[in-house]
């Protein structure tokens, strides 16, 4: 009898999750695991994920790989699945509490934000004190990735976070404004246009992911400011790394969804075979698949890789 596993992602339209799925499928084919994939309908769609977990349990899956939309709220559904003997591994985003899942293979999103924040600050040097920052976030529902990356960036840049569980409550005068982008080019462009209207002298742009960064770049190009504004982003997808290489994006924090997914499938196969559960990285309460800053303009004090290396490691 074959082993069956489930992959549940936040959405299946974001390239990040699309690649994660491809990685999982490739590994599953290799190990002879039957994989079924599910996703939320929109960013932050928590209910569809609960329904998907229930379907997996009903279907007799051995393990579930989950990138949770709502890390606290999903806990009950995960518990029900574990009670039914299903191995649940959180991918990309740790649950809250983190031990609600059997294991967590994740990037630290806060650290991803922190790296680009530090890089931007170091790149600007003294001018960081009078920077004008635009923050292009994901959605007004403020799902946890959205908050972690944004707050990580601000921390790295040296801005007081106020409530670290919420973006938009900072009072630092350098912040021109927050806008939401839905994480795509269209949203990035419109948000950037609006913020430029508010203050045409913006010189630092944080973006939730690389598609919104590309949109922001178009808006800057339209007003002829694409050369003198720093855009930073998170994800490390191949088009994103290419954009770093082309100078569209200054730096991006690269994550490794393929790695997470293939590790997850291996863990499930192992669990099905002999019942062992994966162990966390030493010194942490989760298995860190790592995050790396990709830029061609390295700065002192912030560890980074160049775009050649980034392209090698990128995920699609």
């Amino acid at each position, binding site marked *: 009898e074959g082993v069956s596993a489930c992959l549940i992602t936040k959405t299946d339209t974001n390239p990040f999750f699309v690649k994660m799925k491809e990685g999982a499928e490739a590994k599953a084919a290799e190990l002879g695991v039957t994989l*079924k994939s*599910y996703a939320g309908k929109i960013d932050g*769609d928590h209910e569809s994920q609960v329904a998907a977990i229930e379907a997996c349990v009903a279907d007799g899956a051995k393990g579930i790989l989950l990138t949770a939309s*709502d890390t606290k*709220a999903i*806990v*009950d559904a995960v518990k029900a699945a574990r009670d039914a003997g299903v191995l649940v591994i959180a991918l990309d985003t740790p649950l809250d509490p983190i031990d609600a899942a059997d294991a967590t293979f994740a990037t630290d999103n806060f650290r991803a934000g922190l790296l680009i924040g530090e890089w931007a600050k170091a790149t600007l040097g003294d001018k960081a004190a009078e920077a004008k920052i635009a923050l292009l976030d994901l959605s007004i*529902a403020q799902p946890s990735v959205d908050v972690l990356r944004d707050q990580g960036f601000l921390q790295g840049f040296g801005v007081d976070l106020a409530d670290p569980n919420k973006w938009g409550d900072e009072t630092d005068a350098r912040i021109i404004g927050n806008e939401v982008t839905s994480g795509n080019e269209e949203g990035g462009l419109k948000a950037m246009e609006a913020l430029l209207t508010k203050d045409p002298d913006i010189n630092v742009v944080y973006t939730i992911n690389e598609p919104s960064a590309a949109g922001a770049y178009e808006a800057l190009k339209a007003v002829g400011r694409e050369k003198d504004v720093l855009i930073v982003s998170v994800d490390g997808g191949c088009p994103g790394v290419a954009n770093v290489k082309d100078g569209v994006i200054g730096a991006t924090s690269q994550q490794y969804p393929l790695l997470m997914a293939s590790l997850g499938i291996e863990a499930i196969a192992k669990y099905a075979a002999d019942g062992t559960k994966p162990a966390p990285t030493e010194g942490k309460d989760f298995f860190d698949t790592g995050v790396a800053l990709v830029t061609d303009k390295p700065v002192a004090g912030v560890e980074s890789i160049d775009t050649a290396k980034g392209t090698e490691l990128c995920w699609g």
Partner: protein
Amino acid sequence: MTSDAKAATTFEEGLKGASEKVAEFQDDKTALKRIQHWLHQTPSAVPMIVLVVALVIFGVLSANFFKPTTLSTILQQIAIVGILGCAQSIVVLTAGIDLSVGAIAVFSSVLMGQMTFRYGIPAPLAILIGLALGTAMGFINGWLVAKVKLPPFIVTLGTWQILLASNFIFSANETIRSSDIAAQAPALQFWGNAIQPGGVKVLYAVFLMIALVAIMAYVLRHTAWGRHVYAVGDDPDAAELAGVQTKRILIQVYALAGLFCAIAGWVMIGRFGSVSPTASTGQLGNIQSITAVVIGGISLFGGRGSIVGMFFGALIVGVFEMGLRLVGTDPQWTFFLIGVLIIFAVAVDQWIRKVSA
């Protein structure tokens, strides 16, 4: 000069001995005709047939489908949509539409949760406050529709955005954890309890949904108020002239819909354990409930259809989503097929009605 009038109407003498016979029509007695006639008389039967066909197909395609746990899971997955569907049904019967149902539900659940945890109000009281506030949100919709005479689509499009934003602002994006609720305010999770006959879990929420559908079916069919709801949707001017207090009925309908949504919000806490302001019901609840209503055969032009049909509509969608998941379809293909299903189900419905008309 009435003689003049008399003269003018003498031809009516021809009426003497006029036939009092009632026109008779032969009744077709073939089995097919009888089935058609029955379908025509029982509009909710059409979605039921679609449902049975869907069940059979998925039963064949997936071995796991006909397990009792699968079926009880389907029921618990549609519990919230079913309750929102009750709200949507009565609104649609008045020729309205309520885009704010999901937002009211989520906001009410957040209000119940925060009343308890932020302001320390005892859970039962917090629930009552949440239900009252949900009703008030519906009342505002109704007031704008009935008194200010704005189109329901616009009113609820506006309140949808307003309530969703209020929900995020008020909750400060905070999720209340399941374990905290279980420890401090179990009443909030009441509908998440279950009976377990023979090991199959059936949530209280499922029974609540069925009870609400049954009650509303009775109210709509067997009380004057229910008839008035239909009359308002059918032709509001005629209803007004015929002595229905259309404005009052409209306000009551939207307020009741608000109450149902708040109940759905309470049920959401039980079903998901936690209170989450980002619950996607806020964004998608309206489309989901409208889909159920329409697949169930309620006319968006008002005045026609039954709430039992809505229940079958919700079930059809639930069965399809679960069935496609078990068959292992890719999520995008699931969306695709649900889209096809919506059109197909309504086309079948239309076809049966035409054949049997």
